[in-house]
C-alpha cells in the first residue's frame, strides 16, 4: 500500500503554485546561465574561426556544477520543513497516534522530497542536453551525473529531515541543515587546508601531508561530484590532484574508486540518518527533543 503521508504531501504540493514556480525558477536560472556560457563558447569560435570543444565542454561542466549548487541549496530547505512543519501545524501528534510508524512518516516525507528532486532533475534534462549540439559528452556521462545528483540530493534531504525531526521550528531546522551542509562541503576542505598549513609551517610531524585526513572528504558530496565531472570533461584526475597536494603517499582502492565509494557512503549515511530520525521521532523513546514540549498542562 502507498504511504499516506507521501500521497498527502504530493496532493497538497500540486495544488499550489509553489511547485511550478520552483521548477520554473530552477530551470530558468539553469537555462540563462547555460545560454550565457554557450554564447561565450560561440563567440570564442567566431574569434578563433573554429569550434573550441573545450569551451563547449566547459559549458556542460558549468551547467552541472550550477545544478549541483542549486540542489545543495534547495533540498535542505525543502526537507527541513518536513517534520517541523507538522509540529508547527500541530498535526504531528495526530500522525503519531495513528497506526503509522515514525519510520513510515519519515520515509513518506523523504519520498515526497525526493519526488521533487527527481522532477527537478528530469526537467533540467533539456537544458543539459544543450551540450549535445556540439557533442563531446556521452549520454552515459549525463546519466551518471544525474545519478550523482540524485544521491547527493538524497544525502542532503536526509540531513534536512534529521534536523527537521529535532527542531521545533522550520527556521531552526533550515539553519542547522544549511550549517551542516556548509560544514560538510567547505568545512572538510577547511580542515584539510589547516592541516596543510600546519605541515608547510613545520608544526607537527606531517611526513605524508595530511595523510589519512584526505579520507575526510569521502563524505563531501561536492568532492565526488567534481571528481565525476572532471573525469568526464578532462583527463585530469581530481582526486589524484588532491592527493598530490595534500597526501602524496595515499593510494589504493579507495583513491582509485573514490566517486563510487563516496556515493555509496552517502547512501549509507543517508539511510543511517533516516533511521536515526525515525528513532528520534518515536515519542516513546526517552529522549527529550526541543520539538517536544512536555510541560504543556492546561
Amino acid at each position, binding site marked *: 500500500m502507498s504511504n499516506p503521508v507521501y500521497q498527502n504531501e504530493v496532493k*497538497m504540493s500540486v495544488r499550489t503554485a509553489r511547485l511550478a514556480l520552483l521548477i520554473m525558477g530552477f530551470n530558468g536560472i539553469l537555462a540563462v546561465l547555460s545560454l550565457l556560457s554557450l554564447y561565450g563558447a560561440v563567440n570564442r569560435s567566431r574569434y578563433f574561426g573554429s569550434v573550441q570543444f573545450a569551451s563547449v565542454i566547459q559549458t556542460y561542466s558549468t551547467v552541472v556544477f550550477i545544478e549541483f549548487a542549486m540542489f545543495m541549496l534547495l533540498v535542505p530547505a525543502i526537507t527541513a520543513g518536513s517534520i517541523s512543519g507538522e509540529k508547527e501545524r500541530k498535526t504531528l*501528534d495526530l500522525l503519531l497516534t495513528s497506526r503509522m510508524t515514525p519510520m513510515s512518516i519519515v520515509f513518506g516525507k523523504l519520498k515526497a522530497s525526493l519526488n521533487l528532486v527527481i522532477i527537478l532533475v528530469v526537467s533540467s534534462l533539456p537544458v543539459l542536453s544543450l551540450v549535445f549540439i556540439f557533442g563531446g559528452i556521452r549520454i552515459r556521462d549525463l546519466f551518471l551525473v544525474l545519478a550523482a545528483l540524485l544521491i547527493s540530493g538524497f544525502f542532503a534531504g536526509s540531513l534536512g529531515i534529521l534536523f527537521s525531526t529535532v527542531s521545533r521550528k522550520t527556521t531552526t531546522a533550515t539553519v542547522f541543515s544549511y550549517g551542516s551542509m556548509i560544514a560538510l562541503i567547505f568545512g572538510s576542505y577547511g580542515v584539510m587546508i589547516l592541516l596543510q598549513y600546519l605541515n608547510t609551517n613545520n608544526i607537527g610531524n606531517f611526513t605524508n601531508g595530511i595523510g589519512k585526513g584526505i579520507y575526510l572528504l569521502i563524505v563531501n558530496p561536492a568532492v565526488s561530484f567534481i571528481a565525476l565531472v572532471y573525469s568526464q570533461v578532462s583527463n585530469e584526475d581530481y582526486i589524484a590532484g588532491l592527493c598530490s597536494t595534500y597526501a602524496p603517499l595515499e593510494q589504493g582502492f579507495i583513491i582509485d574508486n573514490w566517486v563510487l565509494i563516496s556515493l555509496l557512503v552517502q547512501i549509507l549515511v543517508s539511510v543511517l540518518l533516516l533511521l536515526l530520525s525515525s528513532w528520534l521521532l518515536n*515519542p*516513546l523513546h526517552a529522549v527529550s527533543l526541543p520539538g517536544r514540549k512536555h510541560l504543556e*498542562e492546561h
Partner: protein
Amino acid sequence: MLRIENLVKNYGKFRALNGLSMEVGKGELFGFIGPNGAGKTTTIKIMTGLLKADSGHVYLDGRDALKDVDNLKQKIGYVPDFFGVYDNLKAIEYMEFYASTYGLVGKEVRKRCYELMELVGLEGRDDVYVDELSRGMQQRLCLARAMIHKPDLLILDEPASGLDPRSRFEMKTILKELCRKGSTILISSHILSELAEMCSSIGIIKKGELLQQGSIEEIVSAVNTSNPILMRVCDDQKKALDFLRENRMVQALAIDGQEFQFTFTGSAQEEADLLNQMVMQGIRVLSFARKRDNLETIFMQLTKEGEEG
C-alpha cells in the same frame, strides 16, 4: 474499559504524575478535571502513546496498553486541544487521509467518512477546504476524524477551548449523543458547568494525584458532609429551635423565618436519627437537606484543600 494504576511521570526533578490511579467504565462520559499543571495532559499523552510513563500501567479492556502500543492506537481516538489543519485539503480528503493512516481505504471508508461527517453535523461540507471551516466546525471535523477507525475510547483534551457558546453547545450535544450510542469518552475541560451537565462521572486530579472520582452525585455527597443543613418547618419554629439547641451535635444554628441553618457534626446515621426524632416530636418538617454545592465549588474546595495542607 480503562484502568490506570500508579502512573508516575517525572520531568527532571518535577513530578508531573505521582502514582495516579483511576478507572473509566464502558459507556461512560468521564470528565477529567484539574488545575493547570495538575497532570491532565501528561496523563492523556501517556494514554495516547505520545509519552512514556516512568512507571505504572494503563489497562484497556484488561490488556496492558503501554506494552502494546499498536493495540492502544487502534483502540483510542484522540482529539487534541489545538486543531492543526493542512492547507489545500478538503474536509472529505482530510477524513480520508486520516483513514489511510489507519490502513483504511476504499469505497466503504469513504462512505464511513460521510456518515461521520453527518454525525457531527458537517453534511454538505465535504468539498469545503478545512481551513475555510469555522473553528467549531474544525473541532467537530477533528472529532469525526478521531472516530474514523471505530475506537473503543475517545479522548478529548479541552475540546471546547476557544469555541463560541453555540459551538460549545453543539459539541456537548454531539458528545452526549455519542455516549448514548455506547461510546466511552474521556474529556478534559475547564468548563466545569458543562462537564457537570453532560458527564456521567468525573475525576479530579491535582499535583499528579487523583483527589476524587465517581459520579457527580457521589462526589457532591462525599464533599458536602461538612456543609450546613438547611431545614424548613411548617410551623412551631420555637419547638424546633428548642429541640435543636438540646442536641450537642448541632452547631452554628441560625434562623430566618421558617428556615433553619445549622452545622451537624454527627455521622449520616445520626443525621437521619435527628430528622426522625424531630418528626416523632411532632415537628412538621417541610425540607431537610445538606446545602448543595455545584461542581465548580467542589472543585475549588478540593483543589484549595490540598494547597492549604
